């Protein structure tokens, strides 16, 4: 599959992100295709988390952090939008499962409405909850315990609950920062399968350290090194025929 023919959902232009004076990502120009899985890879500290947190404007919450350049979501520069609006359109799943401990499973799924004070009619709320839980492949496991605390679930189930929570507000993009790194292999695999199914519904941008995982689930891979985007292309191509020596070194395990 070639990048040129696909519709683009995210496009950055000369994107730089700083912590105080430290430039963590440098002049990134990337086009992320719609309804595909894009993996971000690179050695620890190369700026993957920083980059992904720019895309939903969480980066700027870190004291002293700032961004220059532009990020276009479809045709709007999200740096000029209200961050609240951007975050409704671009959901996020974190490294550690983080369901709200004071809420039930049901309330967790609908947290994106509840916390904003949006009151849904009962049947609509039920519908959204079931839809999101089914999308997150969790419905069958929790349909009889919807009113138990989300924190009672296993780590893998909690992570799928967080995915359901992000999906429930119907985002256009789902950002995932190493969503399986805190999970056991079986739960990881479940989530991987889920991601592949989800790309029918949303665009997925996923940070992963796990090369086989990236190979299994992603259509495109971006390789970051020391804050720069070194290489970006279809995963199969990048894995088998890297153009940049740094990508090759990373893929062959010279550094991690």
């Amino acid at each position: 599959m070639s990048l040129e023919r696909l519709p683009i959902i995210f496009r950055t232009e000369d994107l730089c992100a700083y912590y105080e004076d430290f430039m963590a990502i440098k002049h990134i120009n990337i086009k992320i295709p719609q309804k595909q899985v894009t993996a971000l890879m690179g050695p620890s500290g190369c700026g993957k988390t920083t980059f992904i947190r720019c895309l939903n404007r969480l980066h700027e919450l870190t004291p002293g952090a700032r961004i220059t350049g532009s990020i276009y979501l479809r045709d709007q520069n999200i740096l000029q939008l209200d961050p609240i609006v951007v975050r409704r359109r671009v959901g996020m799943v974190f490294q550690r499962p983080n369901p709200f401990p004071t809420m039930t499973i049901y309330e967790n799924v609908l947290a994106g409405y509840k916390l904003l004070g949006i009151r849904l009619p009962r049947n609509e709320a039920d519908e959204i909850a079931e839809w999101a839980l089914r999308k997150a492949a969790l419905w069958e496991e929790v349909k009889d315990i919807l009113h138990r605390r989300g924190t009672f679930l296993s780590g893998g189930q909690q992570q799928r609950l967080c995915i359901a929570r992000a999906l429930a507000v119907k985002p256009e993009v789902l950002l995932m920062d190493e969503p399986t790194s805190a999970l056991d292999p079986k739960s990881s695999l479940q989530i991987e399968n889920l991601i592949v199914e989800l790309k029918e519904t949303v665009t997925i941008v996923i940070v992963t350290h796990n090369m086989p995982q990236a190979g299994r689930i992603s259509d495109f891979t971006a390789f970051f090194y020391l804050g720069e985007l070194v290489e970006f292309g279809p995963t199969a191509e990048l894995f088998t025929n890297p153009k940049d020596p740094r990508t090759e070194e990373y893929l062959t395990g010279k550094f991690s």
Partner: protein
Amino acid sequence: MNTYPARENWRRIKNQIAVIIIILLALIPTLPLFFILANIIHEGLRSINLDFFLHLPAPPGETGGGISNALVGTFIIVGIAVIIGVPISILAGIYLSEYGKDSKLAEIIRISADVLQGVPSIVIGIVAYAWVVRPMGHFSAFSGSVALALMMIPVVVRTTEEVLRLVPDILREASLALGVPYWRTVMKVVLPTGMVGVTTGILIAVARIAGETAPLLFTAFGNQFMTLNPMEPMNALPLVIFNYATSPYEDWWRQAWATAVVLTFMVLLLNILSRILAKRIAGEK
């Protein structure tokens, strides 16, 4: 190998003696509590019966009567102190943990809270007298509540801040990433997550102020009759103990002991309750 069994044994015995001594020493701080409880129960328990809780004080010199007005008074005075103190304290705690953080203003608030906590309670009483009693022209339960609120605010502010700081950042981010504004995140995610801890702090503060006498002496002042009006002088359990214990009547001394039992067990109960809550937080982690 077994050439020195005696020495081995001796070492073991020495070890056990040391452990026993340490346990005995560790028990020393708990002794005063047991003596106090034994003492007030011994002196006070026989004057406690249903009438003691349900009746008004007898006129000076007469025997009998109860502390119904002081019980009600303590609930009202402490209740109003909670109503005044808790919202202010929680908002200040939220400010310190979620907004001010390491700023100058936050540091000033923290230092002020610590200093306020160290101000002697009698001084707080005088201040409440000057601020509330004098302008109003008379003693009142309300002025007592103001004094007690001043005493509880620093405790609740600092515990609220500490508890909210313990709420993991990933929960804040989970909420923010859903497009929830920061202040809503604080009110709907951070505060509810820390609520058990905040409640524990409030209970500890209530336990502290419920027994305070000095701030009430020239504010709530005391009253031999039943009143529910916070703008009037009102009786309270610590005031009963103070007034009766310093009276010349033997029956009142007995009642002072009995009131001490009631007050001590109320405070004890609050402390145990806050412990249970604190355990529950620890269990949830």
